[in-house]
């Protein structure tokens, strides 16, 4: 089938609209309401084009092609129509371009220059709209709105919660939220990109630069294991804003709010700007060289008596160098799983845990069981795919979790369970309400990162793997941090070298935080936030002889316990690569220079390696990583463990952390506007075998540590007898390490 646009013949598909054909072939048709990822409303009337034998020009965005159709996008009739629409749009649009952030990239401005008339015959008063506060992230200037409704459709169709709506009618139509409400969707920032004019603006960026002065650089998100593609816009070595980089494999045209605004934390006052070394009571400034010497000296001294824990926020380069350095000095206890406490699964774990399905193929699944994850909150981009699957393919989505999560896609069934119930979900024959999936369908079981925090993680993995296998389901593991897959592949593990190569002499009763180690190395980890068992880590810090930190931010515990502190630059101040959950290695470049004397982790580690005679270069490391990854061979993610003991934890309460996506990234924890907008507290849920009610005091027993809890409020009803304890990601006070009593 073919049509003619401006007398040129084009091949077209049956259900193409004119604008799709034009876009594919770089023929420019102005538009406002049309967006390729939103439904078509054809309301702005900007894309009117002339079609042979039609009395009036027709909207290109909604007109479906017909064999032999002759379209003209720039003859008199089309141009007249476009000019007229422009004139209408401008009558009520303020002429405040000089003070508008959109200026320079305003679609209205562009189209007006191209198609509009400079003089307007409109002499009446312009409409003005009083602005309302819709939150910290998106600021409004609603007088500028041209009613394209992209923002409203985005909420309904993509974000899955409609927060902005169209109210009033006729000329008084407004875009607003319900009376006093702010935006709360984790995808809310996308309306800034969608808005073709300066009505919805980026609060962080507002009035801070002019668009034509900005430099654009691409990067990769560090806020979840999907690795969204992003562009940073900088001016004078400062990040001014962040927008999505189109990527058909991952984030499409979208970004989560964490990704968009997450850089705010790099400017935190807590940033460590110099190498520090302990002198008596205090940490004092020093230089890198003496720090490196000291570090190597300690390594040599304590060698196998060391414990090194590295965050999976680190790049593959850092990871490779870190383990290489340490293994050279005979350090065997190397790990990244700071939030885990059950490691019995580890030998049977895949070399690269992953989400083994292309995101685009989620659409073709029949059933998905989510285990222990709040997709909309933890993986907002993934939730878009889930929503589409449910909408377009009627995919049934089930959720099994420790808390009643709300999702922005429909759930076929949602069960709230404690860890024990979860473990037995598919093995307990008495459990009648269980999900029964058809073997002949395309099924997926997805294990969320929060499950790894549980003390019966191994049992859950094993049982769900078994079930998955029995119904031919894909078994997927979502990483806790940006580079969790990388950490497994790069050997940030006690029992495996890079490439998943096993080390034989490994001990089965491995516990990360239990034994006394002389030297403790924490890389990009904050004891306050990054350990679920924070009593233990504080004990460890106290007990060890020397504590070495690599960190971007100063915290109370670092101040108190560190002997040496290497000041790390943050991700946007570094280059490196992440292995995302789809096993895609994505490289990112340094966007701005490191603050103060902080340094890229890879630089520090490379230096350290070379002082012991390694002779690495950044390029050689990159090549090594590629080679290692190419050699890894995995067929599936099933984790089946022989001779697994049933977990028995009934004699004490177990805390189940409801994972807060902020908790995985130190920079994200320090973004004030995100924290104010989204509910960013960490939660514990405490299933108890006695009936818990308000004002109950009871002892909370976390393995060997005890602390007292007073229940002021019981915020949820399931699982039965559970208590939800809210602890702020922002609060300095946290259960365990710093307080034994918590008021709720």
């Amino acid at each position, binding site marked *: 089938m073919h049509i003619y646009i401006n007398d040129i013949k084009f091949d077209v598909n049956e259900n193409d609209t004119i604008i799709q054909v034009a876009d594919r072939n770089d023929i420019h048709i102005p538009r406002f309401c049309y967006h390729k990822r939103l439904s078509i409303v054809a309301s702005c009337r900007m894309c009117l084009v002339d079609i042979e034998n039609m009395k009036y020009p027709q909207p290109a965005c909604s007109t479906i092609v017909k064999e032999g159709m002759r379209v003209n996008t720039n003859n008199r009739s089309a141009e007249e129509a476009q000019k007229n629409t422009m004139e209408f749009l401008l009558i009520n649009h303020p002429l405040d371009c000089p003070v508008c952030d959109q200026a320079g990239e305003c679609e209205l401005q562009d189209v007006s220059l191209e198609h509009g008339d400079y003089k307007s015959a409109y002499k009446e008063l312009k409409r003005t709209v009083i602005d309302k506060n819709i939150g910290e992230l998106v600021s409004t200037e609603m007088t500028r709105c041209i009613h394209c409704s992209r923002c409203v459709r985005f909420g309904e169709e993509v974000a899955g919660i*409609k927060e902005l*709506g169209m109210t*009033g009618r006729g000329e008084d139509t407004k875009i607003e939220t*319900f*009376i006093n409400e702010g935006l709360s969707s984790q995808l809310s920032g996308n309306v800034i990109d969608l808005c073709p004019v300066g009505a919805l603006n980026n609060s962080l960026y507002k009035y801070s630069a002019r668009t034509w002065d900005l430099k654009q650089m691409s990067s990769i998100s560090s806020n979840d294991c999907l690795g969204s593609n992003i562009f940073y816009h900088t001016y004078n070595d400062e990040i001014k804003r962040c927008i999505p980089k189109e990527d058909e494999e991952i984030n499409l045209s979208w970004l989560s709010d964490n990704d968009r605004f997450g850089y705010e934390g790099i400017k935190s006052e807590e940033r460590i700007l110099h190498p520090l070394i302990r002198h008596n009571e205090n940490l004092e400034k020093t230089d890198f060289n003496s720090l490196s010497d000291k570090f190597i000296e300690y390594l040599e001294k304590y060698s196998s008596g060391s414990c090194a824990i590295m965050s999976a926020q680190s790049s593959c380069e850092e990871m490779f160098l870190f383990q290489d350095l340490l293994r050279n000095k005979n350090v065997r206890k190397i790990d990244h799983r700071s939030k885990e406490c059950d490691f019995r699964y580890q030998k049977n774990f895949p070399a690269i845990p992953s989400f083994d399905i292309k995101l685009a193929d989620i659409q073709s699944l029949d059933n998905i069981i989510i285990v222990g994850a709040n997709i909309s909150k933890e993986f907002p981009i993934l939730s878009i795919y889930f929503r589409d699957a449910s909408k377009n393919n009627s995919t049934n989505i089930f959720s099994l979790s420790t808390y009643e999560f709300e999702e922005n896609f429909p759930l076929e069934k949602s069960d709230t369970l404690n860890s024990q119930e979860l473990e037995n979900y598919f093995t307990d024959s008495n459990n009648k309400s269980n999900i029964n999936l058809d073997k002949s369908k395309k099924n997926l079981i997805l294990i969320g990162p929060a499950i790894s925090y549980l003390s019966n993680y191994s049992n859950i993995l094993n049982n769900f793997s078994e079930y998955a296998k029995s119904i031919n389901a894909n078994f997927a593991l979502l990483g806790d941090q940006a580079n969790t897959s990388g950490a497994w592949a790069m050997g940030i593990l006690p029992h495996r070298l890079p490439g998943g190569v096993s080390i034989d002499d490994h001990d089965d009763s491995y516990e990360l935080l239990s034994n006394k180690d002389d030297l403790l190395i924490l890389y990009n980890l904050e004891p306050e936030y990054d350990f679920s068992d924070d009593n233990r880590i504080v004990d460890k810090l106290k007990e060890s002889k020397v504590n070495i930190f690599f960190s971007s931010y100063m915290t109370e515990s670092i101040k108190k316990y560190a002997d040496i502190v290497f000041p790390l630059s943050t991700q946007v101040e570094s280059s490196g690569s992440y292995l995302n959950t789809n096993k895609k290695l994505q490289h990112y470049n340094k966007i701005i220079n490191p603050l103060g004397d902080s340094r890229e982790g890879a630089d520090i580690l490379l230096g350290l390696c070379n002082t012991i005679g390694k002779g690495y270069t950044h390029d050689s490391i990159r090549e090594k990583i590629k080679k290692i990854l190419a050699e890894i061979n995995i067929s599936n993610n099933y984790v089946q463990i022989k001779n697994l003991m049933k977990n028995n934890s009934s004699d004490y309460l177990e805390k189940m952390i409801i994972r807060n996506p902020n908790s995985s990234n130190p920079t994200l924890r320090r973004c004030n506007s995100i924290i104010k907008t989204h509910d960013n507290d960490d939660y514990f849920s405490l299933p108890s075998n006695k009936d818990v009610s308000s004002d109950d005091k009871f002892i909370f027993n976390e393995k060997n540590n005890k602390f007292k809890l007073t229940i002021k409020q019981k915020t949820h009803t399931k699982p039965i007898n559970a208590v939800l304890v809210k602890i702020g990601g922002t609060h300095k006070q946290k259960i365990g390490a710093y307080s034994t009593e918590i008021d709720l």
Partner: protein
Amino acid sequence: MIHDILSENVRKEIDSIRSKFPHDKNKSSIIESLLIIQHENRGYLNEELIGALAEYLNVQKIDVYEVATFYSMFNLKPVGKNTISVCTNVSCMLRNSDQIVEYIEKKLKIKIGQSTKDNKFYLKDEMECLAACNGAPMMQVNHVNYENLTFEKIDKILDGIKDD
């Protein structure tokens, strides 16, 4: 709590409205439910009522708010107890409806669009034709039609409305 905001009676009526539509089409009940709620709340809606209906129907609040601001019979601010709508569209205009409005404005000492001080009357600025063109000039008082109006007739109708 939603049960304190929407009376049992209202909830029952909403339930019966719901039964008119397919079971998964809760939004469809918004318009009629709002009419009921507005009626019970002396002629106007507020944030709390809109929120409560949204919760009761399990739809987003903004969905209800969008509807409440679109249809002209919904008032989002308090208005007088008895609504007077004088049709001023073409057919009525040709039969002097403007004088009818003027007369009522004077009589009630308000301008069109306002409510009387004692909150007894609300003189709605009616944009639409009220579909009684052959009885022009006409008005609706609480949605009851009065046609072929004269000043005397208006006096009789409005004076006949009791305070309650």
